[in-house]
């Protein structure tokens, strides 16, 4: 098993990180807190909207990705620990680009998230850390691409330990 430091990743490497199920309750809970426009919180307004039914807020679909990413990372780290391999500290992200909500996500949908490494580079401002750029996607249970974005995350370099 390879490690999970900056030096262990290479462009082109890809994963399916997991699936997230969106319940009506979860949609309404997120929408009421963060995106309470009529078509997100009211069935009648949704019926009259281009979507027809209550949909997930775009950032809720992104949060589904985050949950899958962290569960995937956690599983990898447990396996590394079991093998006695060194664990990198997980870093934050400075942002993202080109997030696309390509199709609505409805109550009852399950989105499966995947990702591919696009590039990696060491950080000049933070020795011992690098930036990993990736393209992430989400497909619904019908195989339709519903979500995509270009992310970047700080990853620890093996040289830091």
């Amino acid at each position, binding site marked *: 098993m390879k490690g999970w430091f900056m030096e262990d990743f290479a462009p082109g490497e890809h994963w399916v990180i997991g699936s997230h199920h969106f319940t009506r309750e979860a949609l309404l809970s997120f929408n009421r807190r963060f995106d309470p426009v009529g078509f997100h919180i009211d069935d009648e307004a949704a019926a009259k909207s281009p979507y027809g039914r209550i949909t997930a807020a775009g950032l809720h679909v992104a949060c589904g990705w*985050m949950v899958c990413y962290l569960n995937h990372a956690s599983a990898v780290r447990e396996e590394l620990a079991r093998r006695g391999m060194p664990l990198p*500290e997980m*870093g934050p992200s400075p942002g993202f680009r080109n*997030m696309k*909500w390509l199709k609505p996500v409805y109550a009852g949908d399950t989105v499966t998230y995947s990702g591919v490494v696009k590039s990696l580079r060491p950080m000049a401002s933070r020795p011992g850390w690098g930036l990993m750029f990736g393209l992430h996607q989400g497909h619904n249970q019908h195989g339709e691409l519903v979500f995509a974005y270009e992310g970047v995350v700080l990853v620890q370099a093996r040289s830091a330990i």
Partner: protein
Amino acid sequence: MTDNLLHFEDFHAGQIFALGPYLMTEEAIIAFAREFDFQPFHLDKDAAEKSVLGSLSASGWHTASAMTRMMCDAVYARSDILGSSGIKEMKWLKPVFPGDVLSGTMTITGTRRSASRPEMGIVTFDAEVADQFGTVKATTKSMAFFRVRGS
């Protein structure tokens, strides 16, 4: 009633909407992190102090979601919004800490009618939010669809 709502025609480049204030409580930061971003530096003060961020801070996804809420309160909830197809850019410049009160601006950068869907227009904007000390925490470039009046 519909006529009182903001429609596509009501937006023009250079127009500025005030965002916030929006209080990021420790309770909300931890609750959001438990649900969507359960990394130690968003959940636990002691773990956060040992992390690369140095202190308990909000998930970037929480900050982004809070920005959407501020845009809802300032614009979307009193408009005939038809959705959005994405976010061009989001920069999490500085960590958002418990007790931070976020406020900022949403500046319209462009408007155009949709070629494929004449009933709607596309409004692009830049937004930024700062804390109570004026430190800019996050910026974004994004867009939304609004209904054309009378269509």
